[in-house]
């Protein structure tokens, strides 16, 4: 395992230090460096807070800024932040309009955010709502189970909700906007190389020279199945087909198409995959009216990518297009 790092234990903190230093016009550390927040908060607005383990950079800290998040809490690598971190972010950003927590569906994140919310409500009298993003269709839906993971589609939810919050929506309405965005969003990913967790210097899964892992999340956990590697067009159809089957969109439906790099896949390959996915969905009668290609929700140094589709209507289109001024998304 080769990484640019000093020691495994400080990778997350060192990286965050570099991030805040690089974007100190937009963001600042919260108390004791336990979270990162906007340098200047918008008054009277519902605070939007997200968070999760480290190793997904630029998610979520890269989305802090006008039009998106107010604060983000980063844990250790692939480890949910602790309740005190989240509580600190709530205290520093809630200016009376309440707080909306955006959490990726996974037990660790849920429990830590839930504990923080309980403390914030009982000790601080904060009003808190939570959105749980579960866009990853690689996970089978079962009668009893955790349900689907939250992965790259979280970016879309954060952008849409962030824009709505900036527009002045109240906590209750924001939760509804977020739930619609979640319902309209699906993601699936493929890895060509596993992630190397710095502490263990081991890949979480090791693929053979001709294998790929289909249906991976963003924590280095194995995916749904291991398959022979295929050409890009085959991989694109495989993923797009499943998204299509799961979403069952109407002909002529407008979509946002988002191709996300998992960390070690270069822009040239991401654009190549985007081109194939775009053609696929257009051939199936959808209108690809918004596009995003880049490395936004990573799994450390995993080689791979995911494809996310969000069904758009006039409202969500407007919220997607609304100005955003964060380190990673800017328009």
């Amino acid at each position, binding site marked *: 395992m080769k990484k640019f790092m000093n020691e495994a234990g400080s990778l997350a903190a060192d990286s965050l230090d570099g991030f805040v230093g690089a974007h100190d016009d937009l963001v600042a550390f919260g108390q004791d460096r336990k979270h990162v927040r906007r340098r200047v908060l918008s008054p009277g607005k519902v605070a939007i807070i997200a968070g999760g383990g480290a190793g997904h950079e630029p998610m979520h800290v890269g989305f802090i800024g006008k039009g998106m998040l107010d604060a983000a809490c980063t844990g*250790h*690598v692939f480890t949910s932040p*602790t309740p005190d971190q989240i509580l600190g972010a709530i205290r520093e950003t809630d200016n009376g309009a309440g707080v909306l927590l955006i959490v990726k569906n996974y*037990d*660790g994140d849920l*429990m830590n955010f839930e504990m923080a919310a309980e403390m914030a409500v009982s000790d601080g009298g904060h009003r808190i709502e939570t959105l749980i993003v579960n866009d990853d269709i690689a996970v089978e839906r*079962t009668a009893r189970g955790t349900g*689907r993971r939250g992965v790259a589609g979280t970016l879309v939810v954060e952008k849409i909700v962030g824009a709505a919050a900036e527009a002045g929506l109240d906590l209750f309405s924001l939760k509804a906007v977020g739930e619609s965005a979640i319902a309209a969003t699906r993601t699936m990913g493929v890895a060509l190389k596993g992630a190397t967790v710095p502490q263990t210097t081991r890949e979480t899964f090791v693929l053979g020279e001709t294998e790929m892992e289909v249906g991976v999340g963003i924590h280095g*956990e194995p995916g749904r199945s291991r398959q022979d590697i295929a050409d890009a067009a085959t991989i694109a159809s495989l993923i797009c087909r499943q998204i299509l089957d799961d979403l069952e969109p109407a002909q002529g439906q407008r979509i946002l198409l988002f191709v996300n790099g998992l960390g070690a896949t270069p822009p040239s390959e991401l654009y190549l995959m985007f081109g194939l996915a775009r053609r696929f969905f257009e051939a199936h009668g959808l209108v690809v009216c918004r596009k995003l290609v880049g490395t936004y929700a990573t799994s450390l140094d995993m080689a791979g990518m995911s494809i996310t589709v969000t069904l758009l209507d006039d409202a969500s289109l407007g919220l997607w297009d609304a100005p955003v001024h964060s380190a990673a998304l800017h328009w």
Partner: protein
Amino acid sequence: MPVLVRIGPVIAACCADIARHADRLNRLDGAIGDGDHGTNMQRGCEALLAESQRLEALPLAQSLAEAGRILVMTIGGAAGPLYGTLLMELGRAMSETSGTDDFPTAFAHAVNAVARRGKSGTGDKTLLDVLFPLSDLLAADNKFETTPAKVAALAEMTVAMRARRGRASFLGERSIGHMDPGAASCALLVAAVCREINGGRRA
């Protein structure tokens, strides 16, 4: 019995055993999760060790609750809230009751709190597959002598289960055939605690 135990040596024993097995726990977690359970537990145990003196100065119930809070604030991930809740609720329940006879009741209360926090139950392939049966054992005889061997067997039984909670649940069928890392660490910790309670003898 537990009220007679000094918490410092128990923490030290847990910390040493987790450190010794951290790599194995990471590897178990790598197979069906994200490969960090050993590292997470180690971080939590080291935080307890650092506060060991302060914890020893507290009444046991309060000291357990405080240890739980420390775990919650240092482990993160799934294990943090779960182990943290176990100790916090155990401490809380013990401070409301008194005497060792009520320990099984307090423990059962704490395990139920963990299950509520995790929205999980038995057979979900988690540390609860150690904790629930352990709670039943305690209720039956309120003894710590026989448990270490039994909990190891309990952890072993998670191998055949299909995960319905935690990261491993995302793997569906593929989660079968691997021991749950949380069950493994739980068995390990219970063994360490029992050993200390029984005067440092290995069971």
